[in-house]
């Protein structure tokens, strides 16, 4: 069997084209014929019709047609498809035979030539007896033919020739041998093509006609064969659509065949052929070059061709045949073929995103490389996919891959790989049986002791021999190294967890942590060193466990000693070290844990865990353990459940606990802008002297930024702070403190706005302490925060009233009014008003002295102090929003404050007031009281405030309590800016608070000027005293 037996035969792979034979052409000796043939052959591009031409002699013997079967009743097919059939129709049986003959229409010896031509046609027909092959005649002529119908001789002779040759007119062609040969040839070709198609069409009809004679039981094979033939003829006919359809039907029919061990290859082969055809038919067949087979039927065994019986007639022959095939099969490098196919498949599955199928195929590829003894490639592939299976937790599959990988690494004597795979095969993820694990562990120990391991089972004997030599070479290179293996990406047989005892440690106590180790291998294992690395490498030196052991001792005393791990038991190793004072406030992290197996002087392997331990499987395990409600069985003391240990790989170093007390004394709330006093008391409870005590106090950082602007801190209470003072005083040195000593510091805070603030008082100091016989200087600190509310010390209310103390919404130009202030204490503490001051705006003028009336007044909570100032405002015209009045400044302090505490001035902006002009101002001039039966002179002044002459009607209405003299009703004119005086003498008749006779003024020009308005300026009543009894003589005399 040739290695190419699995390739498709050439006749299957080529593109089927209509087969046309040309006869009567002497292409060797005749130049004209040669030119014709060349025109047929040359430039057969896609635009030419698909015909395969062949020149044959006129008397060529075509394959004989077998006699037609009239009935299929007794016919039993011997196979599906004969091997010769396709070739026969591609290259042997033409669709059309063309007879070329040199004959001009004006040939003088026409009769003779005509009969010779007819003979030639007859010979061809004889040879094609029984076939439907068409025959055509082409006359090669020297002259260019005339247009049809013009040459009478030509049409007559053509008809005669057709008759003689028994041809239809459509099968006779003329080929003038002129300049346009190629054009004629192409026209000829197209005509041939039509004939060929008709031929294949009839062939298809012929095959189809057999169908009705077939039955399903005996002719199953024929169904496939016929269907295949129809499809193949369709292809020859260039009818791809139908070809594809028929191939598909054929494929389905193949499936219906009864398969048995003896014919399964034939069925599969045919199915393959048809499937190939079905897939290449559309759009174009792809020709492949190979040798043709020699079998009668594809896929049959050469020693029993054509035998359909499922029973083997000759078992001996069968056995020999199989042996022969197997012998030939040996010479085939199947691995190579398989690997190529697999790698194609890998590419395919990668493209269509099937990662697991891809991995599986890569495993198969790796295994195939292993069988092909290409261990490097095998290892590369297996190593590549291992992590996929590991990450998805398919341990059975991983173990199988690892086992193959271990074999590869053994056979190549790859130390590091060998150790790595051993580590994982011994681990908990491995599904190997204990005896296998024991064997691997023993090998691993051997390797670590610089000896050769035992060969892996089921390895190729020759390869093992080579490997043993390689291993002994390795051994001779003693001390060939330290292998560091990062284990976090796989599942080694030693598990590790690091755990700090606490999430934070004070700097004055040693940092303690445990390393837990657990071995999963079947036998105890000894290690030579365990060391821990930190982010601050200075601590590394303190965390090493090492035992000086000789290499030979590895196997001895396995169950004792602290350097030994017993399978299944959790071992705990306690480490402690003193943290550096520089690391206060920093995180100490375990960056890696190294466990050394073997001895560093010989050969050793370092298992390196990144961080605080854990490997590829541990996070999932930890998750499961945390979900579990299972109660764990009680273990003896000092033993722990592995699952219950949680990795804690980092800890914080925090400062030593301070042993001082910080007290704050103050009287809240703070009053706005005052120098608020905060007394800080620091008392040391330390056993030794503390040094370098520093105080940081003020507004706690991190609050509203506006607070920082409006809060100032000072140590000196005697002067007011201004903007330049900070919100927080830092590192105020206070000195040293002896044990039990206490100190006091006054702090003054000035708050510019109300609201609550957080204040921080932070005391730091240094102290010398000893831990673990090591003297260190510890920095300790204690902080206190306090929230202080700031409030206004008092509320100031301001109002404008008329000189009659009537409330004024607006004041009148040039008419005096009163400004009243009311100071209400809001402070819980007594306030002393040191003084007050009214700072008038330029538009305001005082009517009398503006002296403070509340100097040195002490206000308790809720008490108020009022002042009254008489002011006047000139006419200012119409000002939007009124006229500014000025400021009211109060100087105050807490009554309890000491003398040297500065006085605080609080300025209150007085409200604006609307100033209005009045046309007529009336003021009355009268005594403060009257007396019964004593004349009471009253003078009314009427001032014209306008620039107009005012017509004024004045009347005085009588009152019961008074008699009066003067003008009772008058109408007069007052010139602009002048004043009219009216004098009345009132004579009181009754004592008591009496209504005065009312003055009514009516301005003709200003109808809005009412008596109501007038009443604001002039008194409406007066107190009348009774007639005195103890009066002097003059008064009596007057009475």
């Amino acid at each position: 069997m040739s290695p190419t037996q699995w390739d498709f035969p050439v006749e299957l792979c080529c593109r089927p084209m209509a087969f046309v034979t040309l006869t009567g052409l002497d292409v060797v000796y005749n130049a004209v014929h040669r030119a014709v043939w060349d025109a047929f052959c040359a430039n057969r591009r896609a635009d030419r019709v698909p015909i395969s031409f062949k020149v044959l002699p006129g008397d060529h013997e075509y394959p004989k047609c077998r006699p037609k079967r009239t009935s299929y009743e007794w016919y039993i097919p011997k196979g599906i498809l004969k091997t010769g059939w396709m070739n026969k129709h591609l290259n042997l049986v033409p669709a059309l035979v063309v007879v070329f003959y040199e004959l001009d229409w004006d040939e003088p010896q026409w009769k003779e030539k005509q009969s010779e031509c007819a003979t030639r046609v007859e010979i061809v027909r004889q040879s094609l007896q029984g076939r439907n092959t068409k025959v055509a005649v082409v006359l090669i002529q020297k002259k260019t033919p005339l247009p049809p119908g013009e040459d009478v001789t030509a049409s007559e002779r053509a008809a005669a020739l057709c008759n003689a040759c028994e041809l239809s007119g459509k099968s006779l062609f003329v080929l003038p041998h002129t300049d346009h040969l190629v054009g004629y040839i192409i026209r000829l070709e197209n005509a041939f093509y039509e004939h060929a198609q008709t031929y294949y069409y009839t062939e298809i009809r012929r095959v189809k006609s057999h169908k009705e004679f077939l039955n399903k039981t005996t002719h199953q094979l024929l169904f496939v064969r016929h269907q295949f033939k129809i499809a193949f003829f369709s292809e020859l006919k260039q009818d791809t659509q139908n070809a594809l359809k028929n191939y598909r039907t054929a494929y389905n029919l193949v499936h219906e065949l009864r398969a048995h061990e003896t014919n399964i290859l034939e069925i599969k082969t045919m199915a393959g052929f048809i499937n190939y055809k079905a897939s290449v038919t559309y759009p174009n067949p792809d020709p492949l070059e190979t040798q043709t087979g020699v079998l009668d039927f594809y896929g049959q065994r050469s020693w029993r061709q054509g035998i359909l019986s499922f029973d083997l007639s000759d078992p001996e022959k069968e056995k020999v045949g199989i042996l022969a095939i197997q012998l030939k099969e040996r010479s085939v490098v199947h691995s190579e073929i398989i690997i190529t196919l697999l790698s194609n498949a890998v590419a395919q599955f990668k493209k269509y995103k099937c990662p697991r199928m891809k991995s599986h195929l890569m495993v198969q590829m790796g295994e195939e490389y292993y069988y092909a003894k290409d261990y490097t490639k095998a290892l590369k592939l297996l190593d590549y996919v291992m992590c996929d299976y590991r990450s998805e937790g398919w341990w059975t599959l991983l173990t199988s891959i690892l086992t193959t990988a271990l074999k590869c690494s053994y056979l190549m004597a790859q130390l590091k790989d060998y150790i790595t795979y051993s580590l994982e095969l011994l681990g908990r993820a491995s599904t190997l049986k204990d005896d296998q694990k024991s064997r691997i562990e023993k090998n691993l120990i051997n390797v670590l002791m610089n000896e050769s391991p035992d060969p892996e089972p089921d390895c190729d004997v020759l390869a093992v021999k080579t490997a043993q030599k390689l291993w002994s070479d390795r051994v001779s290179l003693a001390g060939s190294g330290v292998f560091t293996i990062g284990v976090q990406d796989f599942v080694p047989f030693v598990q590790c967890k690091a755990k700090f005892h606490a999430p934070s440690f004070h700097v004055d106590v040693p940092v303690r942590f445990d390393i837990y180790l657990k071995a999963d291998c079947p036998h105890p294992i000894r290690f030579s060193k365990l060391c821990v690395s930190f982010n601050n490498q200075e601590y590394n030196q303190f965390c090493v466990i090492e035992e000086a052991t000789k290499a030979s001792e590895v196997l001895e005393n396995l169950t004792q000693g602290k350097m030994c791990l017993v399978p299944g038991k959790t071992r705990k190793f306690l480490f402690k070290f003193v943290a550096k004072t520089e690391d206060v406030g920093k995180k100490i992290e375990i960056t890696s844990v190294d466990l050394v197996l073997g001895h560093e002087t010989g050969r050793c392997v370092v298992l390196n865990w990144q961080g605080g331990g854990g490997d590829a499987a541990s996070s999932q395990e930890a998750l499961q353990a945390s979900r579990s409600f299972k109660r764990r069985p009680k273990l003896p003391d000092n033993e722990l459940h592995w699952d219950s240990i949680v990795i804690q790989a980092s800890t914080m170093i925090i400062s030593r606990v301070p042993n001082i007390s910080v007290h704050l004394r103050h009287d809240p709330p703070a009053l706005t802008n005052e120098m608020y006093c905060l007394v800080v008391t620091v008392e040391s409870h330390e056993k030794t002297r503390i040094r370098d005590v520093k105080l940081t106090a003020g507004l706690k950082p991190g609050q509203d930024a506006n607070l920082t602007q409006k809060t100032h801190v000072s140590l000196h209470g005697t002067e007011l702070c201004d903007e330049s003072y900070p919100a927080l005083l830092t590192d105020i040195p206070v000195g040293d403190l002896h044990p039990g000593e206490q100190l006091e510091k006054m702090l003054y805070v000035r708050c510019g706005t109300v609201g609550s603030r957080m204040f921080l008082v932070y005391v730091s100091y240094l102290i010398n302490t000893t831990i673990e016989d090591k003297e260190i200087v510890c920095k300790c600190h204690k902080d206190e925060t306090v929230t202080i509310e700031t409030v206004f010390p008092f509320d100031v209310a301001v109002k404008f009233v008329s000189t009659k103390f009537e409330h004024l919404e607006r004041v009148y130009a040039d008419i005096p009014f009163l400004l009243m202030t009311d100071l209400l204490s809001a402070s819980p503490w007594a306030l002393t008003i040191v003084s007050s001051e009214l700072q008038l705006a330029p538009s305001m003028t005082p009517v009398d002295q503006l002296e403070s009336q509340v100097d040195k007044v002490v206000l308790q909570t809720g008490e108020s102090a009022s002042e009254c100032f008489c002011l006047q405002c000139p006419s200012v015209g119409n000002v939007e929003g009124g006229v500014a009045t000025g400021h009211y400044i109060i100087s105050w302090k807490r009554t309890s404050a000491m003398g040297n505490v500065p006085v605080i001035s609080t300025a209150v902006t007085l409200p604006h007031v609307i100033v209005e002009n009045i046309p007529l101002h009336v003021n009355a001039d009268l005594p403060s009281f009257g007396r019964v039966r004593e004349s009471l002179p009253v003078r009314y002044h009427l001032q014209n405030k306008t620039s107009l002459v005012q017509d004024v009607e004045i009347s005085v209405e009588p009152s019961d309590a008074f008699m009066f003299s003067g003008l009772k009703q008058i109408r007069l004119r007052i010139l602009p800016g002048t004043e009219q005086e009216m004098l009345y003498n009132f004579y009181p008749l009754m004592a008591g608070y009496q209504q005065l006779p009312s003055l009514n003024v009516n301005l003709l020009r200003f109808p809005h000027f009412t008596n109501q308005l007038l009443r604001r300026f002039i008194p409406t009543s007066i107190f009348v005293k009774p007639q005195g009894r103890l009066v002097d003589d003059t008064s009596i005399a007057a009475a």
Partner: protein
Amino acid sequence: MAVCVAVIAKENYPLYIRSIPTENELKFHYMVHTSLDVVDEKISAMGKALVDQRELYLGLLYPTEDYKVYGYVTNSKVKFVMVVDSSNTALRDNEIRSMFRKLHNSYTDVMCNPFYNPGDRIQSRAFDSMVTSMMIQVLSRAPCCRAGEALWA
């Protein structure tokens, strides 16, 4: 009926996998593992919108020459995979469906066990015997199938 039954966790690691003892166990492990590609694709093709109405039975995942692999996904994304001998033509879609339903019920019983920690490998005698019954049915039915074949031939 089945030659291999597997329960796969949401994270795609096996919770339970059992195959008939006569065949190479590893082959079935690979077969089940690779079928997860198809399961993944089918789940993602369904989209999130239809999670509520979707059918749990995924149908035939892929046929090989000798076996057919069927899949089923619970709402909690736990997958059931069943491998069936492809010569066993007596098994129709409906039977596979009902087998999966049985498997799902049995799995639910396992989950209801307060001592079972979700995510752990399934070690339940009841579940085991249910799976065994599914696999034994094959053996008892096999001769019957062969008889049918002979008749058809």
